[in-house]
């Protein structure tokens, strides 16, 4: 019986299926546990729609950056963006909330363009992606690069081969 399982595992075609089965078992077992989120997290964010409600009430024009408003003015050590990171480093919160003049104008006229405005360089995600977790971003992009290299190499290889065949 076990021997048969092992023999079937010896074929590469069966490997993804067996692997999927193994993960499936782990996941099904994990259903037994009751999952709870630990409320003490890093980089917390407000509940959905709270910021847009505030923006509607026109409390403060900076709320027009909903849903990515994290406070702070750039290059001002006194008034930094609020970032709760794992390790304290000197320059936290500098990147958050940089606005180009165009974006400032956009912010002043409407509270419905927050995503676009803050995905300019300067949003909270830039703070996380490019500063506190910069190595991750390099890495993800490297994976992308490698995968594209593989694909383009395979395609080029194939195209050249076909061209040679046609010349024959």
């Amino acid at each position, binding site marked *: 019986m076990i021997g048969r399982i*092992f023999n079937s*595992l*010896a*074929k*590469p*075609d*069966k*490997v*993804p299926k*067996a*692997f*999927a089965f*193994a*993960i499936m078992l*782990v996941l099904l*077992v*994990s259903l037994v*546990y009751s*999952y*709870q*989120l*630990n409320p*003490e*997290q*890093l980089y917390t964010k407000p509940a959905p729609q709270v910021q847009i409600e505030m923006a509607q009430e026109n409390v403060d024009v900076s709320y027009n950056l909903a849903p990515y408003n994290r406070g702070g003015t750039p290059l001002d050590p006194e008034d930094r963006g609020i970032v709760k*990171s*794992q*390790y304290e*480093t000197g320059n936290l919160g500098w990147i958050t909330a940089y606005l180009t003049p165009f974006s400032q104008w956009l912010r002043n006229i409407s509270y419905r363009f927050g995503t676009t405005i803050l995905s300019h360089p300067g949003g909270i995600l830039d703070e996380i992606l490019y*500063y*506190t*977790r*910069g*190595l*991750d971003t390099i*890495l*993800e992009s*490297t*994976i992308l690069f*490698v*995968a594209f*290299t*593989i694909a383009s*190499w*395979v395609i080029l*290889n194939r195209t050249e081969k076909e061209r040679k065949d046609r010349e024959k």
Partner: protein
Amino acid sequence: MSDILNLSGSIIGRILLADIVPYLTPFSLALVITILVFTVFLTLSTPEFRAMIQFKKDVVGTSTVEKKEARFRRFMTILCGVALLGVVTTGDLFNFALFVSLVGVTNLGIFAGVKDSHVLNAAFQYGLVIMICSLPLFGGVAITLARTGTLSMGVLAVIPADPLVNISRALLIIGAIGEGALAPFFATKVEMIRAKGAPYINMMHLSSLMVFTRIIEIIFIMG
């Protein structure tokens, strides 16, 4: 830091890269030296001439990897070595998962250019496995994050154990097994190493075992 101290010795050095803090212990130093030595030698080596013997016919000859193909595969080998360096030194769980998937992709790349349908078939199945692996790896990391509120190994080492972390441990182990093509899912690897080009193939074997040794340390740290 208690767990790290008890596992792999005192911390020799660390690099402060904002939230991601790579650290060196005697253990990871040994791993780094091994990987560096292997990467240098595997990169310098020329691919071997594989003796071909066809049974029942009197055909004996040698064949080797084409120059262009060898260049590409050597590039992937170097990248794999770099990724392995990251795997053994990183001090962050998510970073670790990413490095492991980079190792998986470069391993795939080492075999992508081989013009042999058996090898390509095995490489394709391996590719499927590394695609599946993104669920256990990143899922495991996310469950740990949700439970403990941190990703840094230095912090995880001092946090007391949590039963829910066991799930993410199991997921991480199975993810690393899949990415490294380790037992019992090693059939793709055994099929793939039939290809030519000894230095590059050897890199894959090295990578899977190094990932394995590192994941052992990490699952201990997580407790």
